[in-house]
């Protein structure tokens, strides 16, 4: 139970950074931290009591393994998170060259 509360605290740290920070790069890092909290939550769902890592060893016959499906989901989701972060950083660098600042209060051309 306490591990789920720690995942939630990590999510809240990311959310705080996303809302209160003005620098573009800090917004990108906070979004990454929020996504990592969900990955931790997904891996912790698959835990079965007294289970070991799901690598098959034929010498020990009735062994309890933890659930490998959430681990496969998290591997794919990590790659998707990499693509999202790379895309955000490329746009942030180009924004710096056009607006000469990273401050989101200056970047407000579009209104209405």
């Amino acid at each position, binding site marked *: 139970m306490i591990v789920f509360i720690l995942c939630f605290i990590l999510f809240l740290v990311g959310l705080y950074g996303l809302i209160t920070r003005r620098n573009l790069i800090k917004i990108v890092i906070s979004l990454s931290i929020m996504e990592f909290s969900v990955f931790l939550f997904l891996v912790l769902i698959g835990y079965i009591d007294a289970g070991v890592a799901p690598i098959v060893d034929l010498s020990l016959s009735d062994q309890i393994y933890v659930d490998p499906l959430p681990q496969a989901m998290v591997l794919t989701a990590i790659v998707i998170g990499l693509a999202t972060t790379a895309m955000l950083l490329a*746009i942030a660098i*180009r924004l710096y060259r056009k607006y000469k600042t990273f401050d989101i209060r200056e970047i407000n051309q579009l209104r209405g």
Partner: protein
Amino acid sequence: MNSLIPIFIIVPLATAFLIMILGKFIQGFQKTITPLILLFLTVLSFYCLLNNYSDSYAVGGWEPVKNIPIAIYLVMDGFSILLLTIISLIGFLASFYSISYISKFTSENNFYALLCLMIAGMNGVVLSGDLFNLFVFLEISVISSYALVAFGTEKEELEASFKYQVLGGIASFIILFAIGLIYWRTKTLNIADVSTLLSSQQANIFDIFVQILLISGFGLKAAMMPFHAWLPDAHSSAPSPISAMLSGVLIKAVGIYVIIRLFFNMFIASEEIAILITTLGTISMVIGVLLAIGQWDIKRLLAYHSISQMGYVVLSIGIGLILMARGTRPAVAVLAIAGGLFHMVNHAVFKGLLFLNAGAIEHRIHTRNLKEMGGLSKDMPATSATSFVASMSISGIPPFNGFFSKLIIIIAAIQAKFYLLAFLAVVVSIITLASFMKFQRYAFFNKKEYSKTLKIKEVPFPMIFSMAIMGILCLAFSLLAFPGVREQILGPAIDVLMKTGEYTQTIIGM
């Protein structure tokens, strides 16, 4: 090969990779192959639509073990094939239009490859029968659209793309969290298996929490109020064929389609959630059109009208869900769902046509402000005629297709005794008409305001061809209202949504 389903995913993916490899060596390769491939997909999807092709395909060939499905399933039934047709058709017309529009940018290879990737992702979302597979294809199409919105790399486009990306990233995080919670409760990811397991257990507070998370996540992708903040910036700053694709297809295929599929076929319909969905649709409809009246930028005006028309579709689907949850009057529920799906198909065509017109105007005059245009109807006759057809369609004037779909939605609302919703739908339609009268007058029929030294001719042939075909389709789709044609095309879609048992039978039974 014994099934047509994997073709819809393999072909656009292979085209995107081939364009990246061969585009550096062969000139003009990307311009010819993308419209050809999308035309092939359109013809194939029309063939499946008219033959009522309904099948499920297990990727990898893994058979169910002890009656538990363990493979990833791709399912094509009446509802998916309707959306596949719209995606391929609007994609083909937009890529044909962009043969002459995109030639002013430098890296055309990247544009066509990203367009094919976006279409492959949307096809995957529509065909998927597995929750995590849906999430992966959703991310493929949405990340391609982030790159396409920022394609021109001007100041406004980069800022709009950044806002879109941060909000879209939060939505994807919420969707992944909800998928994790569903897996925790039912220990399976297959949509049909989740529906059988959820229907045999008691509904508790956990299910309601998951449903609200899914409405928030997919509602942000579908641009419902109060999650609409990214749409005016992103859709007005993108290049015009991409605006037509985003507003015409993307918010339907990854937003509205998934909400309909999950809430009709996976969860048990409960009345509180259905009332919540209907309320969100009504708020989108009313506030979208009120915000659109004061706009002077043509593409921002069209983007706000997208929010309003999506509100119509969600309102109608919500009425159908309320009636199904109560279990009374199935005939009116069928009518409401038919109106919603018909309006979704119509909106793809006329909103795509309006964005292509706005692109044609911008291509010649280089401005988007309505106060600086005027008198274009003499110089650009094809653009003016098709824009008139599209404006009449969206306002609901007979004999164009918008009239019939709005009429079905209002009749369904009156028959279900929701008189306030029917009244609001009529009022919003009148305000939409006023807004488009303003658009037509200032853009086409006023005195000339722009500088006389610009020589305004008609736009090149590929752009006229796409706009003319869409204008003809606006008239042709109004035939869908007649009972004979409606049963053939919309009937299978409604059957699949109302009878959940048949959907699970298609996957687990076969």
